[in-house]
């Protein structure tokens, strides 16, 4: 029992350090985008919902790894889904960027287009336009699938726990618990980044929205290109 507790604490600490060492660089642009979108709203609940969604996805992946006891096999099977998630994230950020700058009325354009990309635009546009904070939960659920080195490393541990478990059920629970603590550990760094952008003085400057919007479009294109090359 104490070794389990030690392992969970180690995962919490790993999530915390990786959050500042890795997540800020790789997922920072995402949370910055969210904060900029929440122009006149509080950021606490939407960001918490996003992190809850992300961590729930980590837990499901951890449970699968724990059940299968093999990282490489599961990773190979979810690679395509992760590629799609990265592509989706890129499109989402580009749309958020366009919407933040106010350059394009997304829904107007997408409603005139009934091609598959137009339908996607419509869906994403609706998501971006939505003012309901609850939308951050499904966004987190999907973006939890983004290919990410430290998440893979944590999942390696979940698979190992599954391999060592006497019963499949224990493997699933261990995998989920490890990913839960890892995910919680990554929250402070990303929340700090989100809070940094959510400062009244900054948010009252239109130029910040223009610059932030352009930055988001660039990041979104980078995600789309990464997804194609992944």
């Amino acid at each position, binding site marked *: 029992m104490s070794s389990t507790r030690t392992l969970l604490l180690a995962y919490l600490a790993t999530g915390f*350090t990786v959050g500042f060492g890795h997540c800020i*660089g*790789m997922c920072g642009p995402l949370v910055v985008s969210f904060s900029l979108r929440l122009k006149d709203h509080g950021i606490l609940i939407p960001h918490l919902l996003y992190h809850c969604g992300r961590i729930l996805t980590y837990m499901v992946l951890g449970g699968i790894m724990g059940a299968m006891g093999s990282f490489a096999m599961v990773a190979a099977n979810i690679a395509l889904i992760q590629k799609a998630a990265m592509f989706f994230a890129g499109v989402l950020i580009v749309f958020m960027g366009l919407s933040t700058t106010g350059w394009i009325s997304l829904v107007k354009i997408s409603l005139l287009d009934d091609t598959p990309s137009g339908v996607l635009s419509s869906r994403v546009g609706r998501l971006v336009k939505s003012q309901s904070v609850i939308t951050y939960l499904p966004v987190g659920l999907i973006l939890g699938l983004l290919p990410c*080195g430290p998440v893979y*490393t*944590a999942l390696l541990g979940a698979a190992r726990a599954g391999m060592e478990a006497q019963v499949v059920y224990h493997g699933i629970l261990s995998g989920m618990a490890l990913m839960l603590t890892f995910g919680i550990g990554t929250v402070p760094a990303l929340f700090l980044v989100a809070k940094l952008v959510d400062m009244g003085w900054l948010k009252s400057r239109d130029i910040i929205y223009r610059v932030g919007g352009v930055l988001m479009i660039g990041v979104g294109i980078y995600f789309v290109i990464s997804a194609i090359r992944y």
Partner: protein
Amino acid sequence: MKNGAHQVTLLFLLIFAISGESIAAGKDQSQINCSIQDGPCIQEVNGHKVTLEVLPRPVKAMHDLIFKVTIDGDVALSKPPHIDLNMPAMDMGRNRVSLKSNEKNIYEGSGVIVRCKSGHRTWRAAVNFPGIGIADFIFDVIY
């Protein structure tokens, strides 16, 4: 206004931290000291030659790999050796391969080198022999 200046400074620090990742990754290539795709690599630690071989070749990320380590000379280890896998340019979390001895001075363990979304492929395998030292092997993997 002074407070606002602090905030802009912080924002620029954030952007710098984000862009710093790609700058750091550029340094990876200059640190490579092992051609793991071609065969075993050798490093010296406190007078001991440490050899690392990773199989199967080509060494691919996201695949099950076998890590074979040998050390020459008389060694008395307080604990079993292990390998810590990470990227030189970015923290990828704790990825430790435990090594077990099959015969004298020869150790083996299994593990996985994960893939980074950034596309950077340079990894460090820090082979740690407790009480002796750490041999750093820096090499490229295939995605």
